[in-house]
């Protein structure tokens, strides 16, 4: 640009007039704006999902001595790690092979080999699950060949497990990366093994993409009550909930590799959360001994009942008295507390498996799942959600928004109000604009402490969710009522 052109182009700094700001502030809360907002075809604003590699890292953290390995740019690895750090408030050790521009030209093999040797030597893992970020996916790196060459070169011992998953960020979301990585880990660990005709007598349990360590502990507790041996496939509970005792352990937990390898000879396998375990489950059906079942994540009473009955049936053991009593206590709270939640309208959003859980739990309580939004979903999910809504009179008003984002949700909650939202931290702006509470049951939670330790599944989950929700509504009544209605009892 020449100097004269610059001079001609010069304009003055002109702050936006306050009345214009006020006008637009009102306008974005209108039906007219909502229509415009819903007419978007290309711009995504405040999506409620991340990319595949994040889920792959979560699955990779669920195994003993496992060091998640990002084949791609180092910045990607930093993003995934810090997301997990913030959600769990725990370490999330992972490495990358730090591909840069020359990787784009020559491919990432040299980076991969050097990184494998360094990471293996320094961090002494037992397994390094490899997953990809955008760059190698676009330039078409051949991981099968790269890994074979790495072993031939001696970057890692020939028998060192290096599962890998293609997890392109321009396809699916974090739940699909979880599935792809878990599948590859199981394929690698069971490689060369056959169903041996002997049975471990164990239940293989897959939780699906679930970033609530309390849920994992709760599943294990339930199985302990039953007295059923199990192998948790991708057990992140100790990885992301390790004790503080003055020692840092890089690998504080995870499923034992030998147990995972032997899961092929299990008595039964239950995959919870069919949207984040679909590929893994399909493969298991063809390759694992015993019975195979895909079941929903057990939010609420009915889904928990179904899981317990299925476990009981598979293992020929009655549901233990202790769990029956727990069920009774959960139902006791539900009847005690129903008046604080019955008829309340909710906006819910999140990952498909959790979303199905929120909806069935709310329907059981006589609450109304009103705006139901998934920013990365399918027709199948939409149908399943609709069937759930159709199963209850409290589902009649519910409306499903598939592949819409949290800016759409904002339009919904300001034009057609609800009493509360259920989702993850990212919904806090919409909740604030709508002046309603947000219950952070989803992933990630960046702004409240300790929530990942409170189980949401099973009968305990019912107790936790219900006390959180109902007490918040009661708090709101106490904080907002006039003096005459400020009462001792609620």
């Amino acid at each position, binding site marked *: 640009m020449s100097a004269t052109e610059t001079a001609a182009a010069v304009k*003055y700094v002109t702050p936006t007039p306050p009345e214009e700001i006020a006008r637009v502030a009102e306008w974005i809360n209108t039906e007219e704006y909502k229509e415009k907002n819903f007419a978007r075809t290309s711009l995504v604003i405040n999506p409620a999902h991340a*990319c595949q590699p994040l889920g792959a890292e979560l699955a990779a953290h669920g195994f003993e001595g496992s060091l998640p390995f990002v084949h791609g740019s180092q910045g990607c690895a930093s*993003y995934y*790690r810090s997301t997990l*750090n913030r959600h769990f408030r725990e370490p999330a050790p992972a490495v990358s092979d730090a591909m840069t521009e020359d990787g784009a030209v020559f491919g990432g093999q040299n980076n991969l080999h050097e990184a494998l040797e360094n990471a293996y030597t*320094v961090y002494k893992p037992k397994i390094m699950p490899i997953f990809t970020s955008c760059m190698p996916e676009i330039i078409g790196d051949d991981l099968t060949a790269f890994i074979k060459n790495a072993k031939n070169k001696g970057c890692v011992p020939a028998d060192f497990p290096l599962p890998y998953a293609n997890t392109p960020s321009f396809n699916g979301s974090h739940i699909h990366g979880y599935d792809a990585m878990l599948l590859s880990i199981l394929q690698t660990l069971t490689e060369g093994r056959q169903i041996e005709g002997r049975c471990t007598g164990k239940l293989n349990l897959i939780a699906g993409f679930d970033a609530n360590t309390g849920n994992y502990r709760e599943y294990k507790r339930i199985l302990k009550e039953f007295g059923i041996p199990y192998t948790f496939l991708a057990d992140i509970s100790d990885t992301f909930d390790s004790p503080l*005792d003055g020692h*840092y352990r890089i690998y504080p937990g995870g499923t034992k590799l030998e147990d995972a390898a032997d899961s092929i000879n299990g008595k039964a396998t239950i995959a919870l959360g069919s949207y984040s375990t679909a590929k893994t489950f399909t493969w298991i059906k063809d390759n694992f001994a015993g019975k195979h079942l895909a079941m929903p994540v057990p939010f609420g009473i009915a889904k928990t009942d179904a899981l317990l009955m299925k476990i009981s049936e598979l293992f020929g053991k009655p549901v233990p008295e202790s769990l029956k009593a727990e069920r009774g206590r959960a139902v006791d709270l539900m009847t005690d507390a129903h008046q604080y939640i019955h008829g309340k309208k909710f906006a819910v959003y999140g990952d498909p498996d959790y979303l199905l859980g929120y909806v069935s739990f709310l329907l059981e309580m006589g609450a109304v799942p009103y705006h139901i939004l998934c920013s990365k979903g399918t027709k199948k999910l939409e149908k399943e959600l609709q069937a759930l809504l159709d199963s209850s009179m409290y589902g009649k008003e519910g409306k499903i928004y598939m592949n819409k984002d949290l800016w759409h949700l904002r339009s919904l909650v300001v034009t057609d109000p609800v009493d509360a939202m259920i989702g993850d931290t990212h919904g806090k702006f919409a909740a604030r604009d709508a002046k309603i509470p947000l219950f952070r049951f989803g992933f990630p939670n*960046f702004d409240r402490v300790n929530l990942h330790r409170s189980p949401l599944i099973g009968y305990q989950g019912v107790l936790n969710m219900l006390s959180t929700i109902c007490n918040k509504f009661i708090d709101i009544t106490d904080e907002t009522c006039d003096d005459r209605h400020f009462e001792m009892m609620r």
Partner: protein
Amino acid sequence: MSHEIKTVEGITKESTQEMIDKALEIYPEKGKKKRAPHLAPNDQASGSACVKSNRKTVPGLMSARGCAYAGAKGVVWGPIRDMVHVSHGPVGCGWYSWGTRRNLMSGITGVDSFAMQFTSDFQEKDIVYGGDKKLKTLLEEAHDLFPLAKGISVLSECPVGLIGDDINSVAKQSSKDLDIPIIPCNCEGFRGVSQSLGHHISNDTIRDHIIGTREFAEPESPYDVALIGEYNIGGDAWSTKPLLEECGLNVKAVWTGDGELENIAATHTVKLNIIHCYRSMNYMCKVMEEKYGIPWIELNFFGPTKIRESLRKLGELFDDSIKEKIEAVIAKYDPQMQAVIEEYKPRLDGKTVMLYVGGLRPRHTINAYEDLGMTCVGSGYEFAHGDDYDRTASEMPEATVVYDDVSEYEFEQFADALKPDLIGSGIKEKYLFQKMGIPFRQMHSWDYSGPYHGYKGFPTFARDIDMAINSPTWSLVKAPF
């Protein structure tokens, strides 16, 4: 500037080198050779860098570094509040960097301020057929839905550069069609070795597309300044800007914390640029110096000693009226700061701290700890260059360890050897060290506190450091059984 040589008992060049050698022992030969030049004992008197920097990260070593996109979105462009910043490419990058840097903003979100996540959410078909058409449409949609946005930045993620999209021509055409500035920024994450290149690329786009396109409506004054490299983390700019104003200066623009596009565009008319984060914005200071003859000065607003020094250095560039105001400001705040020191120093005196942050704080905060009686026994940067390490030498005590792009393993080894009372670093390091029983503060995000800049920031800083080190919770780490 000559500094008194600071020493730490028990730390010598030999002891530090021994600690470094021990940490390197575990590496394979090649890794050792690559890492060794990045670790060294400080030579305080030399005033020059003792380590190599701004080199590629060693593959497979746990590095805290981010990428060029992170430097562009998170640091330079993201904080400009009245623009829509589009993360162009797949959904992840924008999602991870959404609200995770704490560059606070004024205004109403979604109306005249846009701390949100805008993305083109690339799918397979966009990779195959290219995303230029989608970009054109989404720019129209953004303009339509956010009419008060003063401009739009298009921040490229890795795929955009790899598939050969031409965001520059789309931005140019759409800018004409929509009559707002649309700035294409080719900050793909694979470029360069760290966030640093993203800062540089972003500075270049400001130079090419923004600077000089506006002028302030009010008449110029000899006291017009801009505050550069102040990102308003936890409200820092809301401490430093009023402080400079109290000194009699007109802060016409802040780059880019709580920043406004048009003010940034008119910065070429100021009389002085005051830079805080040298690493991320020295480029534009140099451009404005060459092109518009605007001098620049590098200041440090952490802790009363450095603030006082900085303000007086600043006063030298102005007439007596400013000098007098500065002295009055110092006289007003010094006793308040002294009271803070008197409250906290008895509990912090003699404590040690290790730092590992981005491109500024590993040197700029050292003296603030010293104001509280503490000593820095190790420091290093994620993405600094040689000129940053030059500036660090004089701040750090003699022979203390300097580490560049430290791997998590090295950092752990050093902390284990030095047993600091506090570590100030990032979220990825925080929980590792806390598990070791070492008090920790996040020094990128002020651990969700702040501000830490200026006189307003120091009491908060002192309180937080005291709270971290002296929390009774640390005494419970060891079980009695």
